[in-house]
């Protein structure tokens, strides 16, 4: 947060202006109601992407670990949503908003705990053996993703599983003539809460300071007397837990869960990390929303181009800022 203020004071405002610029640039190309619908949809999608990607940007930035297994935690979160909401089906279909919210809350908490625990085991058993060895990291984490998908098949079966949203979060509300899905508003709110929480943690606590410092210079953090390996575990567990939460929200958004739901997101998450700048939570947040907006706008205006729009966006950003929108360590 203070870093962001320092950037603004230094006049480095152009990256922050990108989001409103994209929103405004798309406005003349469609009706106001369509724009409002797509903008809310894009922001909500971006928030879910942020939930899935936020932990990975810290893992990359702080630990310099190239993990392709991050999707496994998303997948685990998604399947836990199926199990928890299935077990609490009575709450999920009830007419009470509070019961619906409790059912979703239970799924989120279950995913948070289970994926956090899985992250701890994964770091202790696998990742810690390959610190500093990028090729082995890639191989071993790709292997981890494949094994995780097979474990999911063993537990939940190979067939796609349907997942209905809790009753109160289905349907839309009409604002200024635009249909806004209730679930997207909820996802956007949750993403904002997590972003605000992460920023508070990073800017107002010593652990957060250490994470930000460690992203820049691990060696110096150790020379100040801090055991960075303990921080690594905490960051990895947090990243996995956030991915689990993201998996729950993404699964409910898709309303169907497959064993590849997390793996399918891996490339998009990497694109977000690269656009935002590796290790930057603020960059990840901005990039995720940017990707969500561009995907929705292009999908509406030129559906055939939607698939490649994020790649084009990444190329454009990298031509403008080769280290991403908010490069860590750029001072």
């Amino acid at each position, binding site marked *: 947060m203070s870093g962001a203020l320092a950037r603004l004071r230094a006049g480095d405002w152009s990256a922050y202006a990108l989001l409103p610029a994209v929103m405004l640039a798309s406005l003349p190309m469609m009706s106001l109601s369509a724009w409002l619908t797509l903008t809310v949809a894009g922001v909500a999608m971006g928030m879910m992407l942020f939930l899935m990607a936020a932990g990975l940007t810290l893992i990359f930035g702080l630990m310099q670990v190239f993990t392709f297994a991050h999707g496994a935690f998303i997948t685990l979160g998604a399947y836990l949503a199926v199990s928890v909401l299935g077990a609490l089906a009575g709450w999920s279909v009830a007419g009470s908003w509070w019961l619906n919210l409790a059912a979703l809350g239970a799924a989120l908490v279950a995913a948070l705990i289970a994926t956090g625990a899985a992250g701890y085991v994964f770091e202790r058993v696998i990742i810690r053996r390959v610190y500093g060895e990028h090729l082995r990291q890639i191989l071993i984490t790709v292997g981890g993703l494949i094994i995780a998908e097979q474990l999911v098949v063993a537990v939940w079966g190979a067939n796609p599983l349907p997942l209905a949203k809790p009753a109160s979060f289905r349907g839309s509300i009409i604002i200024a003539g635009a249909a806004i899905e209730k679930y997207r508003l909820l996802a956007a709110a949750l993403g904002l809460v997590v972003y605000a929480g992460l920023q508070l943690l990073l800017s107002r606590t010593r652990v957060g*300071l250490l994470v930000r410092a460690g992203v*820049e210079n691990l*060696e110096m953090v150790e*020379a*100040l007397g801090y*055991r960075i390996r303990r921080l690594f575990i905490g960051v990895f567990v947090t990243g996995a837990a956030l991915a689990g939460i993201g998996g729950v929200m993404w699964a409910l958004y898709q309303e169907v869960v497959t064993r590849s739901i997390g793996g399918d997101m891996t490339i998009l998450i990497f694109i977000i990390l690269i656009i935002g700048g590796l290790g930057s939570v603020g960059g990840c947040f901005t990039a995720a929303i940017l990707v969500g907006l561009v995907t929705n706008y292009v999908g509406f205006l030129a559906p055939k181009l939607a698939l490649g729009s994020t790649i084009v966006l990444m190329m454009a950003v990298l031509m403008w800022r080769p280290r991403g929108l908010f490069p860590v360590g750029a001072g």
Partner: protein
Amino acid sequence: MNDGAALLRLAGVHTHIGRYHILHGVDLAVRRGRLTMLLGRNGAGKTTTLRTIMGLWRRSAGEIAFDGAPIGALDTPDIARLGIAYVPESMGIFGQLTVRENLLLATGPKGFDAARLDDVMGLFPALRQKWHNGAGSLSGGQKQMLAISRAIIEERRLLIVDEPTKGLAPAVIQLLIDAFLRLKQTATTILLVEQNFHMARSVGDEVAVMDDGRVVHAGAMADLAADEALQRQLLGLSLASHQ
């Protein structure tokens, strides 16, 4: 050098980096309450010696003792917690953090000690004006001031600084010299690597000169400063270029 009061002692320390043998049996004593200069030409092994002391590179042979206890096998955080502060040649400033946050990271769990903070800011008043600025936006001299301030924001038993004047303007160098002279008045034990002989002569009590991974001369700084022939023999062209 009489090392009976040595706070830090290296005996026959060898360090390999990959397949390169950098230190070839370094013997060095840093006396308590004194400022010891470590001089030598580029590539002599000065930085490697400091990094080996801090555990950033592992010694392959020899002993390193701090206050009589071996520290050669300790990890870097454990070495730092003994009260050894390190300012690397790169300064190690966290550019994304503010000046305040950089300093806060070096304090204990209770945060800043107001009196100590006043003392440190008294050494470098410019930093107080930049308190909430991103450290990445500071000038080179201000970054060095911040790096040294961070090293002394808590009471340390030994301060290790690697080439603090490198690339700095003469006015800033003079500011650093004044700061080290004031630190000496507090009886802080300091090990300082420096190529700038003017600074070395101004602040050093003791001196050790390295060449080819060994300490080839150790003694009083005043003796070396007074002996131009010895300076030429030990420091060669580097002396003339930094006078």
